[in-house]
């Protein structure tokens, strides 16, 4: 099965990095999260309810809707925060990318560890610009807001192609498809990773994994 890959590129000012990336990641996860499954005896299941809330950006003229889940928000903010720190400490170029990968776990026999098979990867390429004065920053606020509107429309367009999605799992398989660790929502299994490009164009830092314990577990 082929993994589909989508790339979103933005040029933002330093202060806008976090909000821009969170807006896109939350929009993706809104589409890739379900309510919590409750399996019943006959093999059927019922699904919990996903709430949404609007988030106003402080440094961008933009508002986005995200899943109402503090745990999910915290996890994403942590990942984006690490990416932003790495970006800042890397040097003056300010080019990097953060990726969100949805995967399925395929259980293997011992001694092999479980395979992670990605089925959808979103890559957000970020280019940080430096602005000289307040007027430029104001223009940047509006421009980045408009750009993010375009990105959201792109994301929605991809989502509505109704391409491959993992089959709805049985109770025993649900952890291979969904992240059941959150208490209020159930997103598809995902991991985040980032790369910072130095001035030579090669990637320097390596990736960071969210579900390390699952991948190492045998």
């Amino acid at each position, binding site marked *: 099965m082929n993994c589909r890959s989508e790339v979103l590129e933005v040029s933002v000012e330093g202060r806008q990095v976090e909000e821009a990336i969170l807006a896109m990641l939350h929009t993706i996860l809104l*589409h890739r999260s379900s309510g*919590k499954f409750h399996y019943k005896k006959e093999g059927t299941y019922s699904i919990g309810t996903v*709430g949404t809330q609007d988030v*106003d950006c402080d440094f961008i003229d933009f508002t986005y*809707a995200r899943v*109402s889940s503090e745990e999910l928000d915290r996890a994403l903010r942590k990942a984006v925060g690490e990416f932003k720190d790495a970006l800042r400490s890397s040097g003056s170029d300010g080019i990097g990318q953060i990726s969100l990968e949805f995967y399925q776990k395929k259980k293997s026999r011992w001694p092999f560890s479980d395979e992670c098979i990605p089925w959808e990867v979103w890559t957000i390429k970020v280019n940080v610009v430096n602005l000289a004065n307040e007027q430029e920053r104001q223009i940047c606020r509006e421009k980045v807001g408009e750009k993010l509107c375009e990105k959201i429309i792109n994301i929605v367009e991809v989502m*509505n192609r109704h391409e491959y999605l993992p089959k709805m799992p049985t109770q025993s398989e649900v952890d291979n498809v969904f992240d059941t660790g959150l*208490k209020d929502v159930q997103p598809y299994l995902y991991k985040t990773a980032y790369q910072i490009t130095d001035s030579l164009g090669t990637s320097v830092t390596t990736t960071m994994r969210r579900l390390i314990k699952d991948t190492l577990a045998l």
Partner: protein
Amino acid sequence: MDTDLSSQDKKDLDKFIKFFALKTVQVIVQARLGEKICTRSSSSPTGSDWFNLAIKDIPEVTHEAKKALAGQLPAVGRSMCVEISLKTSEGDSMELEIWCLEMNEKCDKEIKVSYTVYNRLSLLLKSLLAITRVTPAYRLSRKQGHEYVILYRIYFGEVQLSGLGEGFQTVRVGTVGTPLGTITLSCAYRINLAFMSTRTTAEDNGAAYPSVEDSQEVCTTSFSTSPPSQPAALGVGSADMGYPVIFAGGLNAVHPYQLMVPGKEGGVPPAPSQPAHGTQADHERMITCTPSDGALYSAATPSSSEDTETVSNSSEGKSGSPHDLLETIFVRKAGAFVNKPMNQTTMASLDIPFAMFAPKNAELEDNDPMVNPPDSPDVESPLQGSLHSQGSSGGSTGNTHDDFVMVDFKPAFSKDDILPMDLGTFYREFQNPPQLSSLSIDIGAQSMAEDLDSLPEKLAVHEKNVKEFDAFVETLQ
């Protein structure tokens, strides 16, 4: 092979589509209320949250949506539309967006209704949540308040996009295939936000909406979506009676042409047709008529103490002005900031274009030093005439300079009585300086031959002084 829908599936599908339509309206209207929306996730299923999404149901909105649908479902040629418009406190309104839920004929017979269609409809609602925050009307709706409010209108039938202005853009939210057809959700939004008045008078209403009267299916109502902090009186207009809905306070309640379409249709007209456009255009003109325009027209009677610019403007304007303006009073004007009082002198007829440039009476010319300047040629630029004008209805009299304007030159900022030589006198004297002596004819009368003869002598003198010249050149380097 029987590919027809089972009756249970058909029932389920109809239910899904109906509730999907209702939830779509809720999402759109709530996104235009001007507030941030927040609902909670719940891990235990409540059973009443359609599509596993926590979308609040505002009762009035559901009521109006159900009324618009009138028991029908979106089908081919029958779309459910939510129109979002902006209305200012002065009563001008403008359509911003039309959200369309349409059904086309492309069927997907293989798809599972109770499972795949349901989940895809849920995904489509999530997409709608995202897209409603992204169109231009969202930011407008967040800032609504005293200056303008956002209204919505639900109608069922044919999509009407003509009110969105030129160059409107469309964004497709998504599609879901079903065994009965493909559901498409899209939004057409206005790009050109330049204000167009869509006011219509009561008498226009009758003529403007024949299409509305013809279509029995169109049911229109309109409500304000202003935030609850405003003293809004959200009345529900009955479609049967068709009386207008009273909406948010802060607006002038007396708008007889707003929202009132008598008869079964009720509510806001979908799009103004030709007569209303005429009214629109008039209104546009009226709206854009500014005091500066008024000043132009009032300059026709410059008995007021307007400055010289107005006089020249009015004279230029008059060449195109209506012929009913026969006379004007030319005032002998002093330059700005000049102390001398103004005197009214003559009257001039408008029949002569640029009458202010016409030659003056002889009497005035004799007294005027400008007419017979001491030594310099009598060239007066017409620009000086713009500072003062003495027009006469008569023709020229004995003036050798028929083509030029004779003026009494009173430059700005000058005072006549302090210095023996004032600015004006100075200017006049030195305006035409004498020619350089070397260029005068007298010198030129000397023959070329004499010039050439004197050259060798001059050269010999210069050669003697070569060293001096060289030393000088070195100091320059």
